[in-house]
């Protein structure tokens, strides 16, 4: 690391570690027996406060952003720049009547949103959000994350099935099929990182990327296999969080509101929250795996607090999510599945092979050349074959006078 004057400046070091110090300071008041527990509780409280706050901010950001894309203003009446909009939405949702359909399975109907939110929150436990800022430094952190992520499928299916609504059921079926398919891709694209780092611990993965050549960092996205893996990860993440263009489970135009059609009031708000939290956590993981986690993008910027970089990168990917939502139409169910199993999954598997090559070819230009050529060639060939088999393309039209 190139030590810039700022990086060694105690002020910036303190700023970087401010939350860690704060936590230690608060815990210091307690007897030593309670300290480990209190530290965890404090961390949990922080996560439970920060991310819903971020969720609120994101909903405004999304509505304003979509407005900008669509040539309009977006919310601006509630508070300055419409910033209090989510507060109003929250109050409204909290006080709205909660309807449980007569023929619904009340217990499962009640549990579904809780399962979603709780499991999504648990994913945050292993994400390093800054230098020394990880709640649980688990050796198998990545595994834990995916285990928790898989529970969202359960929640969605619970919601769809228990509502006794045909649209809900269709939505839930779609969701389960889609999430399981893309879960595979999500996992396999992360395996590439594990192969290079040799660890399932997320802080270690970040530490491995937190090095610089010149001013440029060693992020995995700047390697051929990393870029390919990141793209596949991004596709799978979009599908996993049911965002456009993969928002089929709640495809408004055909399935009314998908699996949460029958949810009202605060339960619906919880689904909303869960969806956005899933977006944060999956962006956080993507950041950690491929974008260097909390490390700075240039060596001369390392003095900027690490948590700033983490949240900055997460918000950047949220912005991309919103951008895609404002631009792209939705895929169809069979196309979605074809895409997963015929293109994304084979390509991810190939990427694993390339990663292995990268690992064992040693330093030098040769491995850059070989890996890039293999990936580009595979992409072109597979894309061509895919498009040709479906007969898509621009057409020319004839005219009659």
């Amino acid at each position, binding site marked *: 690391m190139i030590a810039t004057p700022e990086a060694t400046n105690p002020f910036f070091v303190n700023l970087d570690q401010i939350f860690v110090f704060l936590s230690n300071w608060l815990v210091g008041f307690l007897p030593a027996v309670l300290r480990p527990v209190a530290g965890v509780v404090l961390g949990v409280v922080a996560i439970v406060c920060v991310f819903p706050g971020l969720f609120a901010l994101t909903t405004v950001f999304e509505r304003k952003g979509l407005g900008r894309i669509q040539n309009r203003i977006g919310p601006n009446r509630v508070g300055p720049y419409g910033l209090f909009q989510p507060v*109003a939405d929250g109050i409204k949702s909290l006080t709205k009547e909660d309807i449980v359909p007569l023929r619904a399975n009340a217990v499962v109907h009640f549990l579904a949103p809780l399962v979603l939110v709780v499991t999504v929150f648990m994913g945050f436990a292993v994400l390093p959000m800054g230098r020394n800022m990880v709640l649980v430094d688990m050796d198998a952190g990545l595994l834990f994350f995916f285990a928790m992520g898989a529970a969202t499928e359960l929640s969605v299916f619970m919601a769809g099935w228990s509502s006794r609504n045909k649209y809900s059921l269709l939505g839930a079926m779609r969701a389960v099929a889609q999430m399981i398919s893309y879960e595979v891709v999500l996992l396999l694209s992360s395996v590439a990182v594990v192969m290079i780092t040799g660890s399932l611990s997320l802080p270690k993965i970040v530490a491995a990327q937190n090095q610089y050549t010149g001013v440029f960092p060693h992020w995995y996205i700047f390697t051929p296999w990393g870029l390919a893996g990141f793209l596949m990860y991004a596709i799978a993440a979009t599908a996993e969080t049911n965002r456009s263009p993969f928002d089929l489970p709640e495809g408004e135009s055909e399935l009314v509101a998908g699996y949460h059609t029958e949810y009202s009031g605060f339960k619906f708000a919880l689904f909303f929250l869960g969806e956005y939290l899933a977006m944060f956590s999956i962006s956080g993981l993507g950041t950690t795996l491929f974008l260097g986690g909390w490390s700075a993008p240039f060596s001369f910027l390392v003095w900027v607090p690490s948590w700033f970089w983490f949240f900055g990168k997460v918000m950047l990917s949220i912005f991309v999510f919103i951008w895609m939502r404002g631009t792209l139409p939705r895929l169809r169910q069979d196309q979605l599945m074809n895409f997963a199993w015929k293109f994304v999954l084979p390509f991810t598997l190939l990427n694993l092979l390339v990663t292995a090559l990268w690992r064992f070819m040693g330093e030098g230009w040769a491995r850059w050349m070989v890996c890039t050529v293999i990936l580009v060639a595979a992409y072109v060939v597979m894309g061509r074959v895919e498009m040709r088999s479906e007969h898509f393309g621009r057409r020319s039209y004839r005219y009659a006078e």
Partner: protein
Amino acid sequence: MAVDQNLKIELGKQGIFVTTIEELYNWGRRSSVWPMQFGLACCAIEMIATTMARYDLARFGAEVFRPSPRQADLMIVSGTVTKKMAPQVVRLYNQMAEPRYVIAMGACAISGGPFKQGYNVLKGIDRYIPVDVHIPGCPPRPEALIQAFMTLQKKIDGQPLTGEGRPRHLDAEAQGEFPVPEQGEHDLEPTSNKGVWPVPITIR
């Protein structure tokens, strides 16, 4: 339990903002009215135009058109309600969660409008469900819908949480479900919900 207005303004100047539960609650309700994605006829197009770039209902935080009645707060009855459609409109209204509001948009939704003589046209949706705001016009301009929306916000603001004049959903005795009319052999049965719509007397 209202705070003295003068005191409140005075405190506001000092940087202290005082509010009551009532105000906060009404502010929340009024600032986040999500309409149902529900259009009937010509007025629906003006309703869509209201949400589009030029008029942008989103400014009021009301662009979240929910397709499911469970998640919607506001039903904009935009257009002619026919006798074939009326039972479904009432049913949708019943499916909405309290607090819920209705805007009758356009002459047809108010009274049948130009199609009043028609055998299949319901002469105003307020025969079956309570309407909060009526907008005249055929169709009303988008500005009129925005005006109606602001009127609704004012109405919500003025509602106390207790006592006389509290909103329906806070009144335990108030009617929550409205009877759905049946399609009979010649007409809807009953032709109106007497509890909601007393037959007007015309004095000639």
